Each structure stands twice: as structure tokens, then as C-alpha cells.
């Protein structure tokens, strides 16, 4: 079994998931692919049945953070050391995976994707500036200045960090990752990546109103962790 896995959390992604898996599988046949169906109500689980893929299913929808943590725990039990988290909605580019894994294996403990160091195709002005503003929030809450603090594309060395575990079930896990990075003294680097915003991904993505909820969720989570 490979020491590297691509973890794909998915929730109601029947239109995109097969294409995402096939692209990764074609480009990186040497990597394991772990898909976690987070209680989808559509045909996502069936669509994700691509030969060679590990398929896990949450009986109910817990949230992206919980799905990623399920992937991490599963990967650990399979002695997988490196993981890459990859969105199921087709926003991320499989081309970027190779460089992320190379950086990870060269000695970094976590590689964070940054759309602002790379390319954010068709990003709306509002989203762009909101994401830039969220960097300030991340800086004040963690003391770490990042160019893009809420990018779902990351590569993480979970093998050497058994305490790297997410407790935030929903979207606040993105901020929790930065907290863990600091707490576990992980060597990190940001790497440019391409994010392709399509009508579909914009519809599926987080609204600005949700972002307020995520901040509250993160603050409560941090106080009670």
C-alpha cells in the first residue's frame, strides 16, 4: 500500500465526484484515494464507486471536518503517512497534487494551498475580499499570517503527528488546522494552487452568511476544546 493518500470528503456531489476521482486516479495511480461520503442524499456514493478507491460512508451528515477526520483515522489504520485533502466539487486541480506531496516529503509537515499565490479563476470580488479579511481573523486568533487561511487543498504529514486530530465537525475545521499547526509546531509552507470557480462550485460553496456562523462555531469550539 502507498504511503500517500488523497482524502476526498463529499456531500451531495453526484455530478462531479466521478470526474474528480478519475482525474486523480489517472494522474496518480500510485496514491491511495479515500472518499468519505458524508451522508449524501443523492447518488454520490454510487458515482464514487471507481475501481481501486476506498469508499467510506457516514450514516448521517456530520460536516466536512468530521469527514476529513474520518479519512485521517482510516489512513492511519492503513499506515498511510501523508495525506492530501481535496474537494469533491471539482474546484481543485489534480495537477497541483504532485508538488504538494513533493514539498511534504522534502521535510515540511504541512503544505497549505493558497489561491492568492496561485490562481483563483472566476472568483467573485466579494469572496476574494472576504477571504482576504479572514486572514486577519486567523492572524489574530493564531498569530500566523497566511495568504489564504481557508483553502481546502492541503497536504499533511499525519504519520509523524498522531495528535493531529480534528474535533470541529463542520467548516471551522479549517481554522482548527491552523491552531493544530501552531500547537504541534509543524513546519509549514504555503504553495500556490489553482481554484476553478464554476457556477456549480459557487452554488455549493459557503455563503458569506455561513462565514459568520463558522466564526462563531470556531470561537465556541476554541473555548471548549
Amino acid at each position, binding site marked *: 500500500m502507498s504511503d500517500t493518500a488523497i482524502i476526498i470528503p463529499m456531500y451531495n456531489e453526484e455530478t462531479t465526484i466521478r470526474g474528480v476521482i478519475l482525474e486523480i486516479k489517472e494522474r496518480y495511480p500510485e496514491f491511495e484515494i479515500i472518499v468519505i461520503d458524508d451522508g449524501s442524499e443523492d447518488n454520490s456514493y454510487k458515482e464514487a464507486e*471507481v*475501481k*481501486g478507491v476506498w*469508499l467510506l460512508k457516514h*450514516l448521517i451528515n*456530520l460536516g466536512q471536518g468530521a469527514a476529513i477526520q474520518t479519512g485521517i483515522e*482510516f489512513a492511519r489504520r492503513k499506515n498511510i503517512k501523508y495525506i492530501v485533502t481535496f474537494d469533491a466539487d471539482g474546484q481543485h486541480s489534480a495537477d497541483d497534487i504532485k508538488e504538494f506531496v513533493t514539498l511534504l516529503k522534502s521535510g515540511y509537515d504541512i503544505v497549505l494551498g493558497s489561491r492568492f499565490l496561485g490562481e483563483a479563476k472566476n472568483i467573485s470580488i466579494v469572496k476574494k475580499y472576504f477571504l482576504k479579511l479572514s486572514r486577519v481573523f486567523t492572524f489574530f486568533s493564531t498569530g500566523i499570517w497566511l495568504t489564504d487561511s481557508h483553502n481546502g487543498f492541503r497536504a499533511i504529514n499525519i504519520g509523524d503527528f498522531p495528535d493531529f486530530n480534528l*474535533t470541529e*465537525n463542520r467548516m471551522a475545521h479549517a481554522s482548527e488546522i491552523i491552531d493544530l499547526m501552531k500547537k504541534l509546531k509543524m513546519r509549514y509552507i504555503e504553495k500556490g494552487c489553482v481554484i476553478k470557480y464554476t457556477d456549480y462550485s459557487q452554488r455549493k460553496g459557503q455563503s458569506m452568511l455561513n462565514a459568520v456562523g463558522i466564526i462563531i462555531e470556531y470561537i465556541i469550539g476554541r473555548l471548549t476544546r
Partner: protein
Amino acid sequence: MIFIKGLLLVLLTLGFLIFAFSLKLKNFQRIVVIVGYITLFIFISDPILSDRVANLFGIEFGSSLITYLTIGVLSLVNVILFVDTKVNKDAITKIIREGAIRDARRV
């Protein structure tokens, strides 16, 4: 005024009965509920007495004392509910996760 007082006492008694008999309370909690019920019953029945008790704490009106106590109690109940919810949420997450890992399959 008498009608409102009567209504409050009925509501209070109903609340007490629900608390005392429909929930599985520990002895300590049962005592707190009974003491709370008796205190509120007396305070509603005799507002002048409640004013006197409030004066002992430097508060002018008994109703103000009840308001302050209610805010405190409700905040405490909120915290207890939040902790309970979090414990349950964590347990559900663990069960769902273990099930997902147990039933994982390679296509």
C-alpha cells in the same frame, strides 16, 4: 391583579410538577427544585415579603431579585445544555466514524 397572581401560581405549580415527576432527578436536584418552588410560591403570594428579602441583598424590589436570579439560573441551564449537547455530538460523531471505518470497502 389577583387573577394574574393565581395564573402565575398555577403555572409555577405545573412547572414544578413536570420537573419533579417527569425527569429523573438526583436527590440534590430534587431538593433545589422543591426549595425553588416554595420560595417562588411565597414570593408571588406575598410581594411585600419578597421586597423585604430583596432589601437584605441591597435590592429594592423582590421582582428585581427574581429577575436577577432567573438570569443566573437560565445562564446555568444554558451552559449545562451546551455541555450535554457537545458530549452527545462527540459520541454520535465517534459512533458514525467507527461505523464508516468498519464498513470501509475498496471498490
